[in-house]
């Protein structure tokens, strides 16, 4: 047990949490933007997965930042596709989302096999690149706190820093710019922005594009930092956990950040615990985020029901 405590309160564990949280956080921000515009993006999972594979394959031939951009672009494109089917062709957005998820699960394996010349499981024989980590060891020079700062702040992925900035950017966009007002208005009561001459579907289309881009970026982090290389179904439900984090975070960027950190922490535990407890199967530990999500959602709906009952709605 002491061993667990030592691990949990170590700087290395903090770095692990940031690593596991980053892809989730990016997808969560994507989920948040889409959800607030009233276009629930259930395809985060598939967009992330395609982002992973695109980033890996492109990184074989191009510098890492081009690969990251490709992952992001793939997600954005899928967002556009989703918008096209649901707003132009009026298909049900949830069904379109699931279609993308199914397409991603099968399509990535197919594309992987083409790219590797037959391997349907991993991209192990592709020379894919990693996202560099940011080395802040110069902070050591600060007397006193220097070494601690270095231990906590050094060694994170470039994308982790970008993700932190994105949380701020999303918050600023939503609550400080006119378009954020439009987006929230469109999500809450589309008739109002419509009457004010705001193009509702255009706003939703852009949110899905941004949502997909963020999920794709999350995929790039996952396949170019957390792991280097692609494995089939490597997103392992992160896209769905992200949807849970949006709700758990009360549809607010800061709340969503906290929820993503919470889920990231559980995943980090799942990474380190099997080493500490040989008897607890890692699969069991990996279930924790899902159980937390379900518990949190139940808790939320119970609270919402109570609030409704208070208002006299049966």
């Amino acid at each position, binding site marked *: 047990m002491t061993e667990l405590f030592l691990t949990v309160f170590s700087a290395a564990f903090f770095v692990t949490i940031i690593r596991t949280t980053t892809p989730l956080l990016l997808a969560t921000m994507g989920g948040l933007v889409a959800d607030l515009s009233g276009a629930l993006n259930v395809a985060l999972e598939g967009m992330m997965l395609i982002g992973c594979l695109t980033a890996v394959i492109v990184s074989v031939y191009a510098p890492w930042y081009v690969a990251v951009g490709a992952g992001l672009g793939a997600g954005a494109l899928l967002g556009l596709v989703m918008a096209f089917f649901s707003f132009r062709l009026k298909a049900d957005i949830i069904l379109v989302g699931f279609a993308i998820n199914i397409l991603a699960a099968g399509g990535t394996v197919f594309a992987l096999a083409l790219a590797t010349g037959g391997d349907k499981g991993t991209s192990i024989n592709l020379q894919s690149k990693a996202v560099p980590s940011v080395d802040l060891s110069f902070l050591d020079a600060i007397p006193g706190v220097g070494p601690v700062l270095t231990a906590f702040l050094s060694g994170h992925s470039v994308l982790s820093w970008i993700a932190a900035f994105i949380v701020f950017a999303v918050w600023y966009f939503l609550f*400080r*710019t*006119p378009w*954020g*007002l*439009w987006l*929230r*208005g469109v999500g*809450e*009561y589309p*008739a*109002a*922005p*419509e*009457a*004010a*001459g*705001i193009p509702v579907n255009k706003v939703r289309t852009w949110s899905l594009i941004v949502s997909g881009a963020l999920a794709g970026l999350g995929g790039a982090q996952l396949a170019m930092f957390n792991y280097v290389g692609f494995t089939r179904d490597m997103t392992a439900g992160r896209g769905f956990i992200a949807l849970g984090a949006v709700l758990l975070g009360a549809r607010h960027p800061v709340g969503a950040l906290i929820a993503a950190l919470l889920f990231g922490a559980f995943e980090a535990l799942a990474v380190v615990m099997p080493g500490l407890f040989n008897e607890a199967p890692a699969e069991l530990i990996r279930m924790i985020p899902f159980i937390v999500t379900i518990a949190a959602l139940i808790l939320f709906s119970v609270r919402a029901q109570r609030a409704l*009952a*208070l*208002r*006299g*709605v*049966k």
Partner: protein
Amino acid sequence: MALLEAIGISKTYPGGVVANDGVNLVVESGEVHAVVGENGAGKSTLMKILFGIEQPNAGALMLDGKPVRFANPREAIEAGIGMVFQHFSLVPSFSVYENVVLGSEPRSGIRFERHKAIAEVKAISDRFRLSVDPMPAVMTLPVGQQQRVEILKALYRNARILILDEPTAVLAPQEVQELFVAIRSLVAQGKTVIFIAHKLPEVLEISDTITVMRQGKTVGQVKAKEVTEKSLAAMMVGREVTLRVERKATDQSQRVAEIEGLRVVNARGTEVVAGLDLNVHAGEVVGLVGVEGNGQAETLEAVAGLRAIAAGTIRIADKDATAMSVLDRRALGLASIPEDRIARGLATGATVAENLVATRLNETRYVRNGLLDLKAIKANALQLIERFSIRVGGPASTVDTLSGGNMQKVVVARELAEQPKLLLVNQPTRGVDLGATQFIWRTITDARDAGAAVLLSSADLGELLALSDRLLVLYRGRIVAAFVNTPDLTPETLGTYMLGLSTQTADEMKAALR
């Protein structure tokens, strides 16, 4: 030269309803121009065309003498036209100022300038005497204030012409007066107002010119000074209408509903019904009088089983119904015509036929072996459409294509298809035209004459005085006065109690509280 002119406008909706058929409208600058007509006459359709929401199949619009076309509301807004719909388009959780500026926000760079927005909203609301606090979320405001926000929205976008579609239908009498003050101040500052309403006294009070529509055509345009309520009504309906119903003598000895110590607490924790005792007998109409928000609506909802109560008992037909489900209450003979037909009375996306059987799906007449009997449902619809003269394409039309008055008739038809024991009625003729009002009054009175106990609430004192046997005035959730309805009871008498200016003693009330 007229400011705005519509010439020979025709509009046929997909599905073949001819809503406008060669309509002409001439609006002069700086006037209040009322458009009146029965439900379904095509008033809203004409307004939607003026605002660019619907496109006419034929005809032309002239603004300042020049032909114009609006492909969408944005173009109409740019041309200086603003419209307030009967159903508001406000984002509930947004503050007043956010709603006002939405779509044309003041900005510097990518930043939304909140302070500037707040200041501008304040400035317009001062200038046009539409006082609203810019800060609170609109969902916390009463309907009258929400309407002001809508008007501010149009003014913020520099509307010269303001279209108000049935603005008074949702307002309490005092709020109507406040709205009229605002309209006068708008006109004094050079704005032009187009105003739709059903209540002719209101129309005559506020407007300068009146255009009358009937069945998609303009019947005529008159000066408000030159007509009377009677002549206007005749123009609208094409025949004389009198709004009066004869009530038969009935046996009122049997107590059908007994409400004791009823308390209801709302979402914000305030007590809206504060210990109410009242009984309703077979063959009588008990009218709940009061300024809106004094517990009438909550009382009716509590009796209908739609609202949780904090304390008290409700007995219907000698059974304790306090804890009963809506279905069980209905089985005891309860019927209810709710206040908001769109939110509570109807499933607007479903067909007329489906809505007409929605409360009877536990009857083997319409459901056999768990399957809907479509033939019986259709036959029922055809019969009720005929009996209640609902103007609709057919039983398979969806409810959202009906005009307001006809929607209300669908609710009335469903609830009164069979003789109820206890009938709850809230705002039965809101937004309903003269002819349909007369019809609905007749129908409610017929149910009473046949022995139903009726509990009625309405914002229209004329309606309460016309239909009720007894009147109970509610103020802050309590009964402050009770009257047996006699011809010499006046709205003014009721008014002093409604505003809480005086209260009857228990002795004075006794006679009318049985």
